[in-house]
């Protein structure tokens, strides 16, 4: 087990553990902080996968902007911890949720690993059955190239830029409009308007 493997397990534990704690912690603020932890873990996994640009984005957008927004709202509404009221219902739903999510995971893993088995046994050399270390990560060249209609993986930001502006031009524009719509929506939802007086007095 070499260093990167250790790192993988470390960061995986970090992200999953952070997520779990976020889900289970009673106070929203702590939940948000745990969330940040798990996000950072994910970011570092991106680094492991040579997606440096995405890692940066992850930290900036998620851990930075989004979570700060969350924290800001939490402070604004100063939500306390979930009260113990309706605890039985909470307990029942929690147990049911655990069970069903467990089932979901089992199914997903079964599907994923099932495909892996079929892959190994479909391979010709049956000696490699079982141990999946036979997978060789393709080596990456630091250059932006396109192979047919697909873009070749490269850690460089340049490749991203080309990809976005050349191949994914239209989605990029659409995403811009998406953000515009979101912005307009947020404004319309939260700004005070003369129309509101009619609604408030009820």
């Amino acid at each position: 087990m070499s260093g990167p493997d250790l790192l993988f397990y470390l960061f995986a534990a970090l992200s999953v553990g952070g997520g779990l704690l976020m889900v289970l912690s009673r106070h929203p603020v702590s939940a948000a902080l745990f969330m940040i932890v798990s996000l950072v873990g994910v970011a570092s996994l991106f680094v492991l996968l040579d997606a440096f640009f995405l890692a940066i984005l992850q930290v900036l957008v998620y851990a930075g902007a989004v979570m700060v927004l969350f924290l800001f709202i939490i402070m604004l509404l100063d939500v306390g911890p979930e009260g113990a009221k309706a605890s039985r219902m909470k307990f029942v739903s929690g147990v049911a949720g655990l069970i069903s999510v467990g089932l979901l995971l089992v199914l997903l893993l079964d599907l994923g690993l099932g495909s892996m088995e079929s892959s190994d046994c479909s391979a010709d050399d049956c000696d490699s059955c079982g141990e999946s270390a036979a997978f060789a990560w393709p080596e990456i060249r630091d250059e932006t190239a396109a192979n047919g209609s697909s873009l070749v993986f490269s850690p460089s930001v340049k490749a991203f830029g080309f990809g976005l502006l050349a191949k994914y031009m239209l989605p990029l524009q659409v995403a811009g409009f998406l953000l515009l719509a979101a912005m307009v929506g947020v404004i319309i939802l939260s700004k005070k308007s003369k129309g509101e007086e009619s609604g408030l007095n009820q």
Partner: protein
Amino acid sequence: MNAITPHHFLVLAFLLFGVGFLGVVIRRNVLLVLMSLELMLNGINVALVAFSRAGANLDGSIFVFFIMTVAAAEVAVGLALLVALYKRRKSIFTEDMGLLGN
């Protein structure tokens, strides 16, 4: 990094997705439900990046970029809704959102 295969990442992604789903199901604070949704998206991102790396194919990474954008927008709208609702109801707990039903 040769003992780690895409399957490990896949498993990790599924775990994150499941944890997020768990949050959606059991948390009654809408803020936390939104966070859990983010967590699910993160799981997906992990899988996506792993696949794109394993397939030496950049499209996945670019997809991650779009997913982040969308997630941010969703969160923004969601929080705005939440605030607007909080102004009326003084609560952000799901059990208080029972006006519509039956």
